[in-house]
């Protein structure tokens, strides 16, 4: 298994390096720089701008800045944030580091059971009213953009019914609406796939064998068929988790949650290069970790994979 793990980690390295180079270049191509933002619309004082640029080393050629940045990375130093003077990037990200993954994970934990249950239900009642009904709900869940969904939910649940706070991030109640809004499209996407995979599995020979053995329909569906649906669903969970991270960006803006998503957007708009770089690397790491976890889970669920991996 360790050889397999090592191979995966090595595979991650080029992706990480490419991510760093691309973001670094992208940041420099983007017009305007942190100093412009720092001085706001009262900028224009050339002397001060030159002084600040020198202090942050932005006047050096890009290549020098890159080498300096990468050598810093080697020492584990992610540099200082431009937007929050003197504050190391790790400090800026530390508090937010686990808000976004927590939101995404909670949304996924909510979405997987509901998604699969709905998908299997729709498959079992194929082409009946229930199937069409469920499909419509699922597709609606997928089709309403999360910022519109959020606006209606906040207006309904937070303001009119007052069940949940409107925004902010202090008690667990603050997490409910954002997680639900993140979970809906994820559940809908999972349900659609579960339906397709279930339809496929139900056609398989081993399902017919299970029935021929006299097993109850419940066992045939929930033991024999479902297990085989889980395998392809797993691979999708990796993709969905990536999508959820993006979703957190919009949800965090609307619910005023200081997560990684919002910091990512604000740092790009504020040209806070080191913070943007760090967050992009984090996202790349999340993506790799999730895919690796999915592969490991894959091995657990599907013996055909596990046997080969070990050999």
């Amino acid at each position, binding site marked *: 298994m360790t050889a397999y793990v090592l191979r995966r980690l090595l595979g991650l390295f080029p992706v990480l390096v490419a991510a760093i180079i691309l973001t670094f270049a992208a940041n420099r191509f983007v017009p305007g720089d942190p100093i412009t933002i720092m001085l706001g619309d009262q900028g224009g004082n050339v002397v001060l701008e030159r002084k600040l640029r020198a202090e942050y080393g932005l006047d050096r050629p890009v290549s020098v800045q890159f080498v300096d940045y990468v050598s810093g990375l080697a020492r584990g130093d992610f540099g200082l944030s431009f937007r929050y003077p003197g504050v190391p990037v790790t400090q800026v990200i530390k508090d937010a580091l686990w808000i976004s993954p927590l939101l995404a994970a909670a949304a996924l934990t909510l979405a997987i059971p509901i998604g699969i249950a709905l998908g299997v239900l729709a498959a079992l009642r194929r082409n009946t009213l229930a199937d069409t009904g469920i499909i419509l709900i699922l597709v609606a869940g997928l089709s309403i953009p999360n*910022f519109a969904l959020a606006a209606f939910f906040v207006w309904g649940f937070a303001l009119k019914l007052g069940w949940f706070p409107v925004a902010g991030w202090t008690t667990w109640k603050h997490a409910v609406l954002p997680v639900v809004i993140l979970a809906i499209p994820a559940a809908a996407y999972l349900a659609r796939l579960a339906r397709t995979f279930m339809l496929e599995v139900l056609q398989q020979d081993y399902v017919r064998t299970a029935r021929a053995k006299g097993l109850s329909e419940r066992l045939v569906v929930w033991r024999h068929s479902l297990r085989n649906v889980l395998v392809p669903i797993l691979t999708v969970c990796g993709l969905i988790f990536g999508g959820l991270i993006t979703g957190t960006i919009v949800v965090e803006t609307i619910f005023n949650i200081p997560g990684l998503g919002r910091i990512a957007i604000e740092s790009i708009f504020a040209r806070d290069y080191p913070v943007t770089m760090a967050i992009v690397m984090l996202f790349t790491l999340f993506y790799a970790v999730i895919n690796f976890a999915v592969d490991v889970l894959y091995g657990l669920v599907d013996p055909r994979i596990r046997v080969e991996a070990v050999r």
Partner: protein
Amino acid sequence: MNGNVEVVADATGARDFLRRFIRTRSAVLGFILVVLAVATAVLSPWITPNDFSRTNMAFIWEPPGQDFVLGTDAVGRDVLSRLIVGAAVSLVVALSVLSIALVVGTTAGMVAAWKGGWFDAFVMRTADVTLAFPDLIVAILIAAMLGPGIPTVILSLAVVSWPGIARITRSLVLSLRSELFVDAAIVSGTAARTILLRHCLPNIVPALIVRASVGVGFVVMAEATLSFLGLGVQEPLPSWGGMIRDGLPALRSEPHLALAAGTALGLTIIGFNLLGDGLRDLLDPRIRER
């Protein structure tokens, strides 16, 4: 099998496909919605009641009434006209993004599967890197570089969409490669390009059609999110995402803008998704009803 039998099979195949298509209610509903959206977009120059960019200070936030069927927005522009032109804008964006993504994705996928080796690794790693970035971050970086606007939206969404298609094409071509008829073609000395285009492509098309129709829904929604963040289509050109963004703050006092744009966006995406689902059920041999 002699010639005519094959043709006969095709004819019944098409008729059979149509008959089964009609029977899947959701696909029909999806088809109707898509036709509606596309028709609105295509006919937009002729069916827009008045100029979508015409502001009118006397009619700010007019509720839906006779002269403004769906009311007006914050600058007095007619919401209905902007909705219709918005359909054209959204679909143009979606179709251009998909055509780029399909062309790039399919070619990359096919060649990667066929050539294998370093090229395959290169394509797959690039796809990985692109997928590693959340699509919104990529879009924002590109928008910041090129400035908001349609070309930016199309480029950033295409950059985000091609990996998915490349992956599907690659896996399909890999599985096709092990099929006998491909070996037969190779043995008979057919050029790789012809094998890929004449043999592999037709087999991939069903999966691509399904992916494309669902893709349209995704792209229209992504454009809406970009407009929501102010990076999407440039004013005064309308986009549904932008209209929702403008309408949300006034949701409680003048809901007509947000509701109209939200419904239009929702129905169109639902349409494409339903159509995509319906097509997948029918085209994908593995789950066609035995």
